[in-house]
C-alpha cells in the first residue's frame, strides 16, 4: 500500500492562479520530496524538505511540512500552462522512497 496520499486527486485552475496540493503520510520519515511527472515521462525532482524543516522555497514553489500531522503541502504560485503535470510526494525511510498516487494539475491558458 502507498505511504503517501495526495489531495486533491485532480485540480484545474486558470493560468496565474495559485495551486495547492496536499500530501499525508503514515509513518516517521527522514525527508519528504515532491516530484513532477509530465505525461509519458519520468519523474523530475522539485524539492526536498527534511524532517527537521518546516518550510522551504524554490522559485515559485513553496513546501511546508508538519510532522505532527504527518502532512505536507506544495504551493505553486502564479501558475503557467507549462505547470500542467502530475505531482507526487514521496517519503524516505531506511533508504526506501514511497510515493502517493499523485495530484493531476491542469493549468488552463
Amino acid at each position, binding site marked *: 500500500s*502507498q505511504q*503517501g496520499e495526495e489531495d486533491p486527486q485532480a485540480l484545474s485552475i486558470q493560468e496565474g492562479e495559485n495551486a495547492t496540493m496536499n500530501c499525508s503520510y503514515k509513518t516517521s520519515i*527522514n*525527508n519528504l*520530496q515532491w*516530484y513532477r511527472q509530465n505525461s*509519458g*515521462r*519520468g*519523474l*523530475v*525532482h522539485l524539492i*526536498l524538505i*527534511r524532517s527537521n524543516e518546516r518550510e522551504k522555497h524554490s522559485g515559485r514553489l513553496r513546501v511546508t511540512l508538519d510532522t505532527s500531522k504527518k502532512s505536507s503541502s506544495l504551493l505553486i504560485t502564479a501558475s503557467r500552462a507549462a505547470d500542467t503535470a502530475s505531482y*507526487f510526494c*514521496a517519503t*524516505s525511510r*531506511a*533508504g*526506501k*522512497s*514511497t*510515493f*502517493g*498516487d*499523485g495530484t493531476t494539475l491542469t493549468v488552463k491558458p
Partner: protein
Amino acid sequence: GAGVSQSPRYKVAKRGQDVALRCDPISGHVSLFWYQQALGQGPEFLTYFQNEAQLDKSGLPSDRFFAERPEGSVSTLKIQRTQKEDSAVYLCASSSTRAGLQVQETQYFGPGTRLLVL
C-alpha cells in the same frame, strides 16, 4: 552531463515471454533504484542497489522478477514468464549518496520503459 537512461523505451511482450530492461545510471552514482508505475498511480518501490550490492528487494512482486547490477553501474531488471499484470512503466533512478543516510540526496529518474504484455 547525461542523465539516467533506460532501454528499451517501449516493449511489447507476449504472455510467458521473458524480458530484460536496462538502466544506465548517472556516472558515479552509488545508489540505483527500480520502481513499477501502473497507469494512474504513483511509482511503487521494487528494489535498490548500493554499488553492486542489492540491499533491498522487498518490493519485487514475485520470484519472476530479478534485478542485477554486477559491476555497480548498469542494472538490468529481468521479468520471466511475463503476465498481463506486469504491464506497467518501469522506472529507474540513481542517487549520488548511499540510501538510508539521514541526508539522502535527490533521486534522478530515467524516462522509464513502458511494458505491455499481451
